[in-house]
């Protein structure tokens, strides 16, 4: 064997680029570099936010002078009465907004009612942790992140992240390695995305420093947990089957296709953002290919893990693109807050995602699922599709 390889090496040595070719290629690369200079600055432009208050206070002036808890109770009644309109509007609220309590105490509360079992618990807590991070990022970009808010958000983030961790631990104890693995992968990747975003914002926004430190710590932790669970899932007999591996193969393939189409449809984003996402998608495809090799050789556990990784990588590509859309980092590098993207998602009805895996798709869709469940329970909260409100936050 070694002889064959040496022979190969000798043969390959003769294959090289001519000086001419090398120069020609280098010229091509140079001209590309000139057209795409290194981007260093992210200029921040404040976005003037139209207040919600004008619309609501005109109809119900007395409501918003009440104390916190009474506002809560009345907001809940309004939600039931108007059929989800206020709850929908509250979803974009940030700390300091009138409707923020509705978001945390009503919407998120309802979600926790529907989250049965440790797996949903893990996923929900991970989502909520991520939500706190996004709120901090948006506030920082608007220049509204003071010490009080940042401390509060940090505390809540830690609460949810710890909760996610303990739910994961419970899953491990219950030997539900597959559920634990999928939840831990999702959690790890969302923390990594936000660590990246916070890192990017840190120079302009010192107030995010403590948050980034915590996020990094939790990200490291989440990576360790994921690695541990991964080792267990690969050898788990329930997972190490042809059926399970192929199931994830299909899911992964579908996800990659979906993200590919999503990237193509993005007209409003810069080329660089899209290429960044495409690169991530390329990674996903490479991992998928590796998974297929493992599948062929019968290593079902490993194949399952690789397909799951490919799926998650593709999902990350989409999510980082979505986050950039929400924060609206455009071609010139200027940043503003954009709430309009939510309308598109909700109008589309989030129908592209199947009900079972909504946790992977932004909060709009997860909330959609919850509202459907609630509908079954008490018939009073109607779903998104029936009620449309045009409000600019």
């Amino acid at each position, binding site marked *: 064997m070694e002889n064959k*390889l040496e022979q190969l090496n000798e043969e390959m040595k003769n294959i090289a680029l001519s000086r001419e070719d090398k120069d020609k290629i280098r010229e091509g*690369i140079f001209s590309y570099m*000139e057209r*795409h200079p*290194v981007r260093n600055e992210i200029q921040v432009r404040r976005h003037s936010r139209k207040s919600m208050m004008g619309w609501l206070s005109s109809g119900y002036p007395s409501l918003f002078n009440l104390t916190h808890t009474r506002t809560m109770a009345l907001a809940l009644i309004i939600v039931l009465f108007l059929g989800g309109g206020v709850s929908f509007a509250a979803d974009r609220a940030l700390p300091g907004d009138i409707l923020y309590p509705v978001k945390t105490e009503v919407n998120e509360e309802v979600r926790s009612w529907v989250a049965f079992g440790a797996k949903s618990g893990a996923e929900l807590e991970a989502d909520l942790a991520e939500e706190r991070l996004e709120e901090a990022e948006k506030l920082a970009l608007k220049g509204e992140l003071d010490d009080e808010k940042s401390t509060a958000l940090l505390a809540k983030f830690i609460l949810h992240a710890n909760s996610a961790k303990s739910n994961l631990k419970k899953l491990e104890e219950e030997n539900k390695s597959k559920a634990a693995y999928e939840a831990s992968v999702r959690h790890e990747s969302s923390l990594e995305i936000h660590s990246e975003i916070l890192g990017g914002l840190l120079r302009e926004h010192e107030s995010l420093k403590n948050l980034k430190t915590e996020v990094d710590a939790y990200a490291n932790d989440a990576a360790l947990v994921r690695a541990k669970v991964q080792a267990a899932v690969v050898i788990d007999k329930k997972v190490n089957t042809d059926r399970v591996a192929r199931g994830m193969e299909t899911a992964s393939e579908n996800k990659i296709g979906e993200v590919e189409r999503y990237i193509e449809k993005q007209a409003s984003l810069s080329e*660089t953002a899209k290429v960044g996402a495409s690169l991530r998608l390329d*990674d996903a495809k490479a991992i998928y290919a590796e998974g297929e090799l493992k599948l062929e*050789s019968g290593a079902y556990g490993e194949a399952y893990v690789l397909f799951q990784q490919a799926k998650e990588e593709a999902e990350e590509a989409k999510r980082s693109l979505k986050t950039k859309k929400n924060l609206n980092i455009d071609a010139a590098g200027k940043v503003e807050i954009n709430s309009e993207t939510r309308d598109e998602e909700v109008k589309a009805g989030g129908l592209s995602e199947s009900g079972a895996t909504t946790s992977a798709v932004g909060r709009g869709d997860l909330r959609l699922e919850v509202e459907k469940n609630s509908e079954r329970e008490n018939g009073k909260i109607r779903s998104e599709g029936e009620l449309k409100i045009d409000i600019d936050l």
Partner: protein
Amino acid sequence: MSNKQSPIEQEFISLYEELADPLYRRFVFKISHAERSKDLVQETFTKCWEYISQGKEVKNLKAFIYKIANNLIIDEYRKKKSISLDFLREGGFDAVAKDEDNRIVENAERENVSKIIDRLPSKYRDVVTMRYVDGLTPGEIARVIGETENTVSVRINRSIKKMRDILRIYGKQT
């Protein structure tokens, strides 16, 4: 190119000088098409620059470039699924064009070794390809993958052992 090159630009260019040939060899080895391989070399570096120009930090630029190159190879394979070279060789017509630009470099022995390499786990596949196809020294490989030179040598030896096993198991059918 302008005179004032930033450090990242300089690093990027010297990386090109260093890796252009090894990558070219790797592409030719995998897809047997000289002209396309030249395009892929350029594409590898432009894609890498695309990423860098967003201001993103890459810890190990060499490893990153190899990652991009590998992904491009996988993409090539997917495109080629519809027209398999094997079919062309076995089935009907002789599709080998022999002019300078489109020369398809064929070599049965190389194909066999290539197939054995493909059956290795990725860890081993990487070092074997870098060592015997790209022509990197163990020291250079170590810098790309972020391990010690010793680890690389050991891994190469293990790879050769595994390849012997694979040859034994799968025999001469490849």
